[in-house]
């Protein structure tokens, strides 16, 4: 395929889909699929046919729309009317009301059961109004299993622009200019990383996409891969061109069956159209991507462990330096970025770095996708500009706490992050502010807890996770997490003493400083942040040492 053919294909795709007046999007993400979304789609298509509307209205599956709690969701474009909890039996009634009577079904509208006056145009709803979508813009609008729809939505235009009018240095300069930072959690400037790999001269380099979203309570990467796999693929290809790589690997979690399937389909379709392979779009750039399926090890999210796993070995990290940028996959310079980072690339190239950096804060540009879950009224996937306050996310977008409980804490960053208490609700969600509170941005899991959550047990829960997931290579992490877990368990069981708390603090410092990789280095974070923000919960549990002696237990 050359440039003209790409334009022709895009025009054709636009025409094909543009000829429909309206479009019914049925969310087919993992969550909605679990509640029968496929059957809903089938019934809607049948109902459209029966009413003779199948030439005017297109019905298709799409990726996640964000509100997994209310699924299966059905969205009607261009009105942005969203219906919730649609069952296959509702399909006929819905089609008749929407397209024949042209009166939206009030009782099935999004949030009809929780808001006094649901919105016909869902974009007016606070849940969507506060969001700003770059990565998820086409997610929930286009069919992820069809490359043509992606083409019709400016897909692969950025790749075309890069290949025909930009030098690799210019691509890197543009990414640097956008001030995009790694979305995997650490927030390293992406442009700088690309430049480092670019500068290492080697005949073979690799691009790796980290889709091993191991944190419990996070599903952003899954939703992006399910909802718009081509955007990730395009980002990887542009990265390949910029750093001079000809091969890419996408490492996706084994549990994400649907994401793997959709990404596979995307690769196949791109290959078929000649967008992957040799001499892409008539240029001298050749690139191909392979999928590697993860096998359930949290530590494989660490870059050196991920490389080991791609090479077919145990996923244990190795000391850095040398960094993967210099000596990575099979000893070659390797660029590793998160799924979400790659998904940002195509929009940056299309609209320019300037446009991207206009969103967000001075130090953290752009938007961030969060997986909002836990004791919150409207849980789901949201994308907000960096720096949006936690209060806005929890109370305006998320609708506040579910049930009668009171907000107690929000947990970010999974087992490597920490808890943000109520007094810091106004903190802006960006890398630096979260760091200053002892938490981290992480990949974007955001779990809301109410006053029924026991913070000591939360710390124990995460420590147990780290203990299980520690790969065992270095002693500080292997032994330290186990010891900290046992002490926390004692405190939870009401047998801890002040001595335990002191030792915990001491040990946390050692594990943090001495561990080989980020897993051990951040494992004490949940413990330290709960100790810092909720010290009274620990104090309440402690018993004086002589109380244990009296009951015949020994002081450990």
């Amino acid at each position, binding site marked *: 395929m050359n440039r003209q053919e790409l334009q022709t294909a895009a025009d054709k795709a636009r025409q094909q889909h543009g000829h429909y007046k309206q479009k019914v999007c049925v969310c087919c993400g993992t969550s909605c699929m679990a509640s029968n979304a496929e059957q809903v789609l089938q019934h809607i298509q049948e109902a459209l046919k029966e009413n003779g509307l199948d030439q005017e209205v297109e019905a298709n599956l799409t990726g996640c729309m964000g509100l997994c709690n209310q699924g299966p969701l059905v969205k009607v474009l261009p009105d942005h009317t969203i219906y919730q909890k649609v069952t296959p039996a509702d399909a006929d009634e819905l089609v008749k009301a929407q397209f024949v009577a042209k009166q939206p079904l009030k009782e099935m509208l999004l949030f009809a059961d929780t808001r006094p006056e649901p919105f016909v145009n869902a974009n007016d709803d606070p849940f969507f109004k506060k969001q700003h979508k770059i990565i998820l813009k086409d997610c929930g609008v286009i069919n992820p299993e069809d490359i043509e729809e992606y083409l019709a939505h400016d897909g692969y235009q950025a790749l075309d622009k890069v290949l025909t009018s930009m030098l690799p240095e210019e691509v890197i300069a543009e990414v640097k200019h956008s001030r995009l930072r790694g979305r995997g959690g650490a927030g390293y400037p992406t442009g700088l990383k690309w430049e480092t790999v670019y500068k290492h001269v080697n005949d073979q380099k690799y691009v790796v996409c980290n889709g091993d979203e191991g944190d419990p*309570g996070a*599903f952003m990467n899954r939703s992006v891969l399910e909802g718009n796999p081509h955007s990730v693929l395009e980002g990887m290809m542009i990265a390949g061109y910029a750093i001079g790589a000809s091969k890419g690997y996408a490492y996706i979690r084994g549990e994400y069956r649907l994401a793997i399937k959709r990404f596979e389909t995307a690769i196949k379709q791109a290959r078929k159209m000649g967008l992957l392979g040799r001499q892409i779009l008539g240029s001298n750039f050749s690139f191909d991507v392979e999928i590697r399926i993860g*096998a359930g*090890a949290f530590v494989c999210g660490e870059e050196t462990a991920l490389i080991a796993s791609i090479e077919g070995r145990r996923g244990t990290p190795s000391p850095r330096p040398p960094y993967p940028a210099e000596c990575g996959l099979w000893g070659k310079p390797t660029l590793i970025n998160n799924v979400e980072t790659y998904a940002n690339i195509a929009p940056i190239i299309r609209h320019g770095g300037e446009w991207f950096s206009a969103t967000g804060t001075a130090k953290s540009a752009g938007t961030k996708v969060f997986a909002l879950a836990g004791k919150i009224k409207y849980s789901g996937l949201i994308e907000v500009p960096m720096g949006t306050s936690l209060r806005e996310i929890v109370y305006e977008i998320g609708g506040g706490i579910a049930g009668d409980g009171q907000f107690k804490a929000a947990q970010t960053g999974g087992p490597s992050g920490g808890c943000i208490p109520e007094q810091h609700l106004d903190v802006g969600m960006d890398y630096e502010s979260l760091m200053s509170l002892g938490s981290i941005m992480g990949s974007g899991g955001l779990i809301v807890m109410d006053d029924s959550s026991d913070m000591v047990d939360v710390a124990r*829960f995460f420590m147990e996770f780290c203990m299980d997931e520690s790969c065992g290579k270095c002693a500080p992490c292997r032994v330290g997490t186990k010891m900290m877990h046992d002490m926390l368990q004692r405190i939870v069981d009401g047998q801890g003493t002040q001595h335990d708390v002191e030792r915990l603090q001491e040990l946390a410092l050692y594990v943090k400083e001495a561990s080989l990789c980020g897993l051990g280095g951040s494992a004490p974070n949940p413990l330290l942040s709960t100790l810092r923000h909720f010290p009274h919960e620990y104090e309440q549990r402690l018993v004086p040492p002589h109380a244990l002696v009296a009951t015949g237990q020994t002081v450990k």
Partner: protein
Amino acid sequence: MKRTHGLPYTPMPATDPRVKQLDTRMKKEGYRPDALIEILHAAQNAWGYLPMPVLQHISLRLRIPPARVFSTVTFYHFFSLKSQGEHTCLICTGTACYVKGAQQLLEAVEQTFGVQVGEVSADNKLGVQAARCIGACGLAPAVVLDEEVQAKIDAAGLVAKIKEKLEAI
């Protein structure tokens, strides 16, 4: 010197279609040792778990020492050396599910069916496992029962569903 294995090696029956499928897959990957994890995924899909003879077969074909194959298998949570039972009940214990009471689900299943987490019932009918997070946090607490996601389920509902599955045959 002849290499000796700790376990007696029994060649895989070449007539088994699953073996043929696995051999084709290995050939497709060019018998590259770095394809080990991919091959293990394929084998687990075919057998439901990873029986020891299959591991020996893979080790021989990919020319990887059996110890390395074994160490890789035991490193990753996804791979299982034991049969997982005819019906599998995978309870998510991720943070969102934990907050919404996954622990009660685990206890209910353990008490009703007498199967501990990570174990299979004596008649090999039901296997119970706990997942770190299945990424369906909007549906918390979530359980995967025979590849089917059960959303926002409570203890009584889960027990009823499992009973239904067990009595279906």
